[in-house]
């Protein structure tokens, strides 16, 4: 399991939520607020109406052309901190 298969490029299925990075923001009217979001090189115009606090550089989860939430970087880091603790537990259990 050294390498996972690489992600399929260019999939924009309706229901697959994908993370991307906000690279520009336009339109002050909250209902029509949009921005450009970069999905690993593919840049798309995305509605930011539902992420009123999102800033340039934030990562967002996008479904059907709408950013649904900003990814919380602290929570993302927490996952790997917890995993590190879990790994140490495993090592201890295995007497490493």
């Amino acid at each position, binding site marked *: 399991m050294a390498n*996972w298969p690489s992600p399929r490029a260019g999939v924009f*299925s309706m*229901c*697959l939520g994908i993370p991307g990075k906000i690279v520009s923001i336009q339109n002050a009217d909250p209902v029509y607020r949009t921005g450009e979001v970069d999905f690993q090189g593919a840049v798309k115009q995305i*509605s930011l109406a539902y992420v009123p606090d999102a800033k340039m550089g934030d990562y967002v*989860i996008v479904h*059907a052309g709408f950013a649904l*939430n900003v990814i919380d970087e602290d929570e*993302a880091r927490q996952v790997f901190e917890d995993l590190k603790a879990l790994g140490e537990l495993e090592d201890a259990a295995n007497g490493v």
Partner: protein
Amino acid sequence: MNHLKQFRDPDAAQTLLAAIRRIVTRPHAVMEICGGQTHAILKYGLDRLLPDEITLIHGPGCPVCVTPASVLDKAHEIAARPEVIFCSFGDMLRVPGTHTDLFSVKANGGDVRVVYSPLDAVKIARENPSREVIFFAIGFETTAPANAMAAYQARREKLPNFSMLVSHMRVPPAMEALLASPDCRVQGFLAAGHVCAVMGTEEYPPIADRFHVPIVVTGFEPVDVLQGVYQCVKQLEEGRAEVENAYARVVRRGGNPAALRILSDVFEPSDQFWRGLGLIPASGFRLRDEYAEYNAETKFGAVDHASSAEPDECISGLILQGAREPHQCSAFAKSCTPEHPLGAPMVSSEGACAAYYRYRRLEHAGR
């Protein structure tokens, strides 16, 4: 930081797999609700890396697969009208109804257009005032905010030529329906992370309590899925049945307030037909009465749920309930392929049949 790379890290996955192996003492059946998770599980072979005690049951969470044939029949009827521009997510084009599919309607001269966002359909309506523009508004709670916004903008702009054919599903009532069925094997759930990103997690504690099942809100990358399985198995081993959030970087308890505001302005819960599962009480969204002018059923007549039929050999209902695996269908990879799908689960990239065809076809050939 590169989220995708981190959450696909094989070492992190190995840590979780080792932890799962350490805690598991007996068999457990866990259902992943969402087709996106099914896809990730097969693509990365996660089901094979897990200990034999753990069975992953694939759930009904593929919006393309559960859109009823009756609604597709209505879509095909509307899309064939000369005054109509019919806009749809691309996934829906090859899904068969009773007689045809949108792709064939288009080939026969229907003006069928693929859009990525429902707002693209609103734009087409603005630019084509002499045509009727219909958007095929399907999906779960993940697409509902997008579809709601399309209706919201159209009403605000008083666009007379825009309407939506709506077939919207809500996940929690479907989980209850599965759990209430007498032959349900599911002991724990991985809840669909992006559904919860919109709706929050408040709907789940009553389900966990009533059926005594752990429910773990789970993401879509390999590390996310394994983290969800780990937490779910840990609860099962400890005899707990709680709602836990293993996808806190995206899911907040209250969901997305801005999305929920527009969603409840436009939609209200309603009984809903699911392809393969039938009518489930309160399991859908319909347009509120204030949006009647933007409802395609007001303009073109109501969907007739009695008229549609499924091909005999397609067992998609059993597949969607997790009662059978795709390779157990006699048509799988023979008369039913992604090029010539008999049923919706073979069409959608999130459909279980398509995922098995893509990742498991060769080993099941000739069985």
